């Protein structure tokens, strides 16, 4: 039996970054908002207090902050002619769960995409000609520009207190910042974090090679900060436990440390945790959402009617819920028709391990933060001439090592036995003088016709709903890109004085068991044409205008940066359109 709840103005599915931003913006507009979150409530002192948050076994190895595959998972295959199988332990990416979502466990690397990233197909076609792009590459323009999003990037950075050095202030290139970034309207709210030894050394070597190194923009704050909502944050302690961990010091930007304290005080906001939305309901025309159906931890089913539905879950679950709710035409790679599930992408990450003379170098690698590091952007996006290289795309690269955690920070030179006394000796000898940046080369992954999401024909979840199925493999373009970038990256470590540099290229086939990043993108992409995009430039569903879809599932392809800054900017951009236009005249904001 389904209990029908009193109607709300807005129902939000998933209370992570974008759900929190929309909840804040729409409650400010006076609307009555309920957010429904699959995972538990989480707060700093109870759930990631500094006296136990730094537990690598509990959080990194046993994945405590993440969704558990026993609750729900997805199936995976590389190629369309293979049978997909369910994932039973997370690998290449980590589906978040719980209040705060990925904003709890992220590293807080707070990037903006390049202006050319938003007009990618137009830009690359103009510069290199249409034939330069691989035939099955399905990249698109976003329908929204960097200039559209600049004020919203700015809002997010000031909400978070982001620490960084501006590279381009209103068109003026600034010393010490990223000269390739789009113009920003004002400096970062707080100065860049102090760089530990190895990170600073990378910056020095990169400068000597003629690059323009700059500190990675960080949501681990260099100093105490009070955001525009008067929520206070503390300075980062460089404990080196950010990614996979919650921050116990109120110093990593998250919904908990920036928005939720204000949101939870509002009488027109309500959050329900441990409740999973099973479908978005539509009326008989299928063109209007009437609310959602969800199930609580006791197995009771509820219907929550609402005038406006915000779908703000993680990428995979956004796409799955659209497919299960029969909203939008499912993508079919054979006919190249349909939209929901198309242009699904991830990231192309590779790394370099380098070994230095331990009598001369002591890096103290445990002194770090999630978004620490010196980076270069010469090989990102279209910042360099791809003509001679035969591929498109790129990424930032840098010494961005986030810590020296005991279980996984055991770099040993190639040729070392994998266990036993010799391995132990090598770990001891190299711990302080070896470097392993983690996501050293942070390459883009562009979209392809045969990389997509749909519903699995075989495997079902606890509600008897089909699991999401991912079909994903690397294409030659990304493999070439990665080889080029990894070689460039390794040169910097040689210049730093490394005795041995071990390049770990990203290779095909795509391996779903090895962690890269959690930056899954696409599947419900934005664009200008309802035939090739699921949502318009305001993240509004083309098919159901009172449904807005948030997050990286909007990205038509993934750039060579971490996605959070951009997906948060899109959330503010969408919220502004809802507040200034949609609420006055509910209906499509773009007429195709």
């Amino acid at each position: 039996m389904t209990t029908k709840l009193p109607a709300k103005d807005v129902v939000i599915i998933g209370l992570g970054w974008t759900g929190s931003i929309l909840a804040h913006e729409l409650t400010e507009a006076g609307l009555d908002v309920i957010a429904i979150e699959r995972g538990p409530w989480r707060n700093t002192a109870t759930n990631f207090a500094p006296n136990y948050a730094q537990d690598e076994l509990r959080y990194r190895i046993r994945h405590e902050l993440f969704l558990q595959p026993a609750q729900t998972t997805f199936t995976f295959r590389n190629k369309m002619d293979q049978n997909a199988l369910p994932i039973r332990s997370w690998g290449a990416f980590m589906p978040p769960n719980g209040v705060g979502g990925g904003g709890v466990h992220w590293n807080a690397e707070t990037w903006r995409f390049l202006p050319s990233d938003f007009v990618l197909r137009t830009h690359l076609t103009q510069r290199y000609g249409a034939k330069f792009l691989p035939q099955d590459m399905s990249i698109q323009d976003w329908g929204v520009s960097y200039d559209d999003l600049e004020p919203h990037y700015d809002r997010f950075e000031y909400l978070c207190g982001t620490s960084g050095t501006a590279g381009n202030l209103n068109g003026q290139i600034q010393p010490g910042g990223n000269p390739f970034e789009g113009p920003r309207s004002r400096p970062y709210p707080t100065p860049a974090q102090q760089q530990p030894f190895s990170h600073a050394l990378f910056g020095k070597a990169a400068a000597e090679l003629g690059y323009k190194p700059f500190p990675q923009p960080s949501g681990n704050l260099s100093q105490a900060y009070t955001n525009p909502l008067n929520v206070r944050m503390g300075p980062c302690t460089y404990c080196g436990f950010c990614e996979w961990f919650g921050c116990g010091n109120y110093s990593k930007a998250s919904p908990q440390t920036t928005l939720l304290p204000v949101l939870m005080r509002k009488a027109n906001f309500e959050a329900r945790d441990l409740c999973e939305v099973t479908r978005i309901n539509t009326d008989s025309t299928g063109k209007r959402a009437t609310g959602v159906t969800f199930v609580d931890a006791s197995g009771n089913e509820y219907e929550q009617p609402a005038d406006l539905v915000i779908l703000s879950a993680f990428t995979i679950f956004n796409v799955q819920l659209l497919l299960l709710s029969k909203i939008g035409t499912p993508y079919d790679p054979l006919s190249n028709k349909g939209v929901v599930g198309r242009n699904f992408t991830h990231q192309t990450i590779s790394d370099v391990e380098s070994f230095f003379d331990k009598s001369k170098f002591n890096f103290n690698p445990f002194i770090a933060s999630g978004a620490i590091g010196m980076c270069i952007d010469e090989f990102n996006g279209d910042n360099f001439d791809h003509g001679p290289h035969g591929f498109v795309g790129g990424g930032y690269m840098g010494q961005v090592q986030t810590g020296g955690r005991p279980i996984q920070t055991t770099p040993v030179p190639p040729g070392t036995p994998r266990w036993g006394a010799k391995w132990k000796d090598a770990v001891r000898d190299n711990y302080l003088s070896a470097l392993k940046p983690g996501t050293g080369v942070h390459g883009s992954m562009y979209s392809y016709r045969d990389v997509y999401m749909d519903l699995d024909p075989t495997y079902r979840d606890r509600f008897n709903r089909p699991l999401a199925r991912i079909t994903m493999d690397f294409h030659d373009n990304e493999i070439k890109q990665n080889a080029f970038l990894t070689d460039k990256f390794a040169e910097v470590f040689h210049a730093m004085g490394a005795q041995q540099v071990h390049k770990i290229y990203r290779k095909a086939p795509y391996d779903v068991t090895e962690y890269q990043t959690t930056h899954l993108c696409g599947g419900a992409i934005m664009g200008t044409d309802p035939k090739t995009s699921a949502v318009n430039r305001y993240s509004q569903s083309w098919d159901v205008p009172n449904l807005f879809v948030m997050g990286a599932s909007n990205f038509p392809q993934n750039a060579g940066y971490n996605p959070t800054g951009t997906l948060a900017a899109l959330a503010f951009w969408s919220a502004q359109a809802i507040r200034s236009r949609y609420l006055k005249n509910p209906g499509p904001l773009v007429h195709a």
Partner: protein
Amino acid sequence: MSTSAARVSLVALLAWLMLSSSARVQGATFGASDRQDFAQIERGRYLTRVADCVACHAGADGTPFAGGRPIETPFGMLRASNITPDGATGIGTWSDAQFDAAIRGGRMPDGSRVYPAMPYPYYTKMSRNDVLAIRAYLNTVPPAHHEVMSNQLPFPYKMRSLMAVWDALYFKEGEFREDASKSPEWNRGAYLVEGPGHCGACHTPKTSLGGDELKHAYQGYALQGWFAPDITDSEDVGLGRWSPTDIVEYLKGGHNKYSAASGPMGEEVVDSSSRWTEADLQAIAEYLKGLPAQREASRPLAGGDPVMTAGAAIYWDACSACHKADGSGVPYLFPDIAHAPSVASREPTTLIRVVLQGAETAATDEEPTGPQMPAFGWQLTDAQVAAVVTYIRNSWSHAAPPVSEREVRAARTSLALDR
């Protein structure tokens, strides 16, 4: 909802309306106040906030003023009464004179004595006009039919007649008299602190019978597992280092650059002082800054003391990430325990408790963050807690007697915490 269900609940609603209105007609007199005297009611609403009536008189289900909240006293349990204007179970039939006699005289309408858990020894300083304004406001809240058995004390305390002796010993009836030699602000502050604000109810030490030790007024008192700190102008353990602005910020927002309100004071800030006027908070600050301090000469423990050495190591491991190596914390976020005066309070009750159990701080419109102190009781032994608390109480500007393992064990037991 089906039509028949809707009809049933409509009938029920009508029946309830008829019953409750007939009860009003027959039972309630509402005193003499005019229920549309806006100015008086508004003043009463504000004074009800200042007196923080709802802190005790909330209903168990949260219904304001419906009563029933248990009040733990050293003598047993009381339950706050229903002060809504319900005729049968509230104060609807009381005359204004009866209401005034209860608030300022400690007498029930039947002549029996009120227990001093109700702070009439402070409210007696209020003016009759202010008390009647509170009455006028209470007349406007929805009547709640809610029977409360207030007196749940054991023998002999359950005999209200005993309170005649208590009143004779400790109750000085009489309105606040202005001191013409002081500023109007000081006088307003004195009125608020001594009268409706009833700060001494927690912050003034009590005799074994629960009466105020007036010669130590506002020098701090342990109750309900917390230590309400010294709020005199003492440099060491009171508000001596705080500017009037620091005091106003603390009462308004729950946080200032030194300290954060948690526990019962956190509730007070959220329910009461965060909603006082700026002028009243300034007046209170002026009055508190004038309260004479009693110097207690404590000498800090020597740095080489083994307990201090252990405490310093634990502090470095467990506390310094937020409170910093030098104890300075982060203003308005993590208390500056190098300078927060309550750290070296006469009794370490609060410090032990907060280390064992953690604490939520007040979240207010001014300071919405509401940062929390995590619990360490599951992690540190009694001896370790004693060492780190001793270290904090004898470092930087502080000096206080060492805290024993036994005190920590007792606190752990009373908080029902395991390790």
